[in-house]
């Protein structure tokens, strides 16, 4: 426990799941990105507490961790919804109307790029390229069940996909 303030730096409470990761990589030079990736895998995002905890265990300054976390597009500093929509904005998707698909998603969910719906079911993230260019426009939906890719999207198709997920989630909640 850090003595100087109440930031809880070095206090392991709530981060037990991270212990094996920090044990394996904590003292291996050059492992910061790997640690952050595994942290995000476990908690869904990088919280201030998580960053402080990692700092306490690795000796890397929180400011530096924050610097690395904000440099790479993969890292998120805010929690995400149950379903992460990764909408491809690659060149092939752009040419085939990815902007139109984004419009449809925003219309249907009422959120823009980087935002999460109020019910916590969806987060929309635009990504650079998913590499399924022949199926453009494409999106990938990532949830606890895994990831599923949807190709050759149209405005109607994307809305139908989202409606189905929403219905499934609502039924599961009952």
């Amino acid at each position, binding site marked *: 426990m850090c003595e100087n303030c109440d930031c809880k730096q070095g206090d392991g409470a709530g981060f037990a799941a991270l212990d094996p990761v920090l044990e394996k990589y904590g003292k291996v*030079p*050059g*492992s*910061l*990105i*790997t640690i*952050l*990736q595994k942290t995000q895998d476990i908690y869904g995002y990088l919280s201030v507490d998580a960053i402080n905890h990692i700092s306490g265990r690795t000796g890397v300054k929180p400011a530096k961790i924050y*610097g*690395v976390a904000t*440099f*790479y*597009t*993969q*890292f998120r500093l805010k929690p995400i919804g149950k379903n992460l929509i990764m909408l491809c*904005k*690659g*060149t*092939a998707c*752009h*040419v*085939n109307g990815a902007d139109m698909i984004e419009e449809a998603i925003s219309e249907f969910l009422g959120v823009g790029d980087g935002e999460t719906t109020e019910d916590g079911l969806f987060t929309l993230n635009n*990504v*650079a*390229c*998913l*590499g*399924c*260019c*022949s*199926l*453009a426009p*494409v999106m990938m939906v990532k949830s606890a069940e895994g*990831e599923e*890719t*949807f*190709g050759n999207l149209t*405005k109607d198709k994307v809305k139908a996909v989202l409606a189905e997920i929403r219905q499934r989630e609502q039924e599961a909640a009952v």
Partner: protein
Amino acid sequence: MRVVVGQGSCGVATGARKTSAEFERLIAEAGLDVTVEKTGCIGNCYLEPIVDVYDGDKLLSRYVQIQPEKAADIVERHLKGGEVVSEYAISEADERFLTGQRRIVLRNAGVINPESIEAYMATGGYKAIEKALKEMSPEDVIAEMKVSGLRGRGGAGFPTWFKWDAARKNRGDMKYIVCNADEGDPGAFMDRAVLEGDPHSMLEGMIIGGYAMGASEGVIYVRAEYPLAIHRLELAIDQAREKGFLGNDLFGSGFSFDIRIKAGAGAFVCGEETALIASLEGERGMPRLKPPFPAEKGFWQKPTNINNVESFANVPWIILNGGEAFGAIGTAQSKGTKVFALAGKIKKGGLVEVPMGLPLRDVIYGIGDGIKNDKAFKAVQMGGPSGGCIPASLIDTPVDYENITKTGAIVGSGGMIVMDETTCMVDMARYFLDFTRKESCGKCAYCRVGTKRMLEILERITAGEGQDGDIELLVELAEKIKDGSMCGLGQTAPNPVLTTIRYFRDEYEDHIYRKKCTAHSCKPLLTFTITEDCKGCTLCAKNCPTDAISGERRELHVIDQEKCIKCGKCEESCKFAAILRD
């Protein structure tokens, strides 16, 4: 018999796993002696899911677009009845997509099971490293690579032998060989296909490279967005270790080598060698000045060599068949083949591997079968955000490093995005600048601020607020950014703008002076009107968010241009194609 289901990312996205599961279920149910296997991407992405039926190694039939519900027919009629289900079989025209190619890098992709090292070994896999270690000195390997003329397939086109030789000559107690599998260009998926379809060929090339330069450790820097590729690489590395192709004293030669994977975290600038090394060390991926080059001081300050996936995948073939055989393919300066990711407004998109020097026309029309919906071909974008747009008038340009560079584009890593008459070239330039502006690491002011300023101008032009002098200002900024940036990202970022101005200046002028987008793509420049085809169904009026459409039921409707916000909702809702965009 064997049923082989293509399960690269494209296949999986179209439901190949469900198809595969359905075959397994039906075959088990019928008690047939047929195995269900998986393979990587064969390249005809537009036909996925693809299912091959083999008798031993003999391909009996290739079926395309096999959704789960079609599996029963194939099991009943082909597996049980021995009859080819002709309505699902690949057509002759679609077979041309493959027969027009020359496959070295993709020699096994879509043919073998990528998760089985035995399958790779059955095609002569790991024979090249055995030959290199038993019969060749590292200098011999480098000499063979020199004869082959292989140039880096990641973008810069630097001779591979030269990089290996430089790294070999630099002394160090520890040397590293790195595989750049951080395929960052939007619109490119060649490396993904190799990693998913034939990971061992890349590993073998890397081991040979390690031997040639005297490295003892290899690191694969792979995109985190490619989970399937990472999974198959992990499997492949474990299998190679088990068979003794990785580890200590390989083939009793005294050469020890191992490989590990490092997942990138998404930063385009990490395609630059020094930025990639910074990222490997867990830092922000910022490039640094060269020299010292990575061959002298790279990963952890040790001599390091970085090659791209496709370059490595060529190496085993070169060692087995000889540099001369490789050099016989292609042109005088650009040897061998190149894999392209053909996408955009193309009829048959997918992965295409062709000899260097083949004219663009043969790729786009011969293999890709031309433009979707038979629209007019306008341009092809090559080289991603660092490349440029090649106009239709230059369609007979041979695809090799020299000729493509002359057009202002670059071969790059192999993205080939085809555009038709409905693609606005100013918007394309805006799209790429938006990308590079976001991906600029911020170290050099010209790249950081300059790309932002260029983007603002392009946004203004596509919004219909272009001003006299904008084109000249763009060119001036472009030249300064090229000169004032340290790494390849900034030095090439203006290319998409410069090439579109060079070949499509009239489109820029139409936007700026006539306030028109001839491709009818930039919405703020459009005018929506209703034609005589209107049946008066009132659907457009109901869908208009600003109540700009008026008219009685069964009568011609009219759009009030003052109120219209050009959202296009009327066009989407109209069932009679009575909305005209101009």
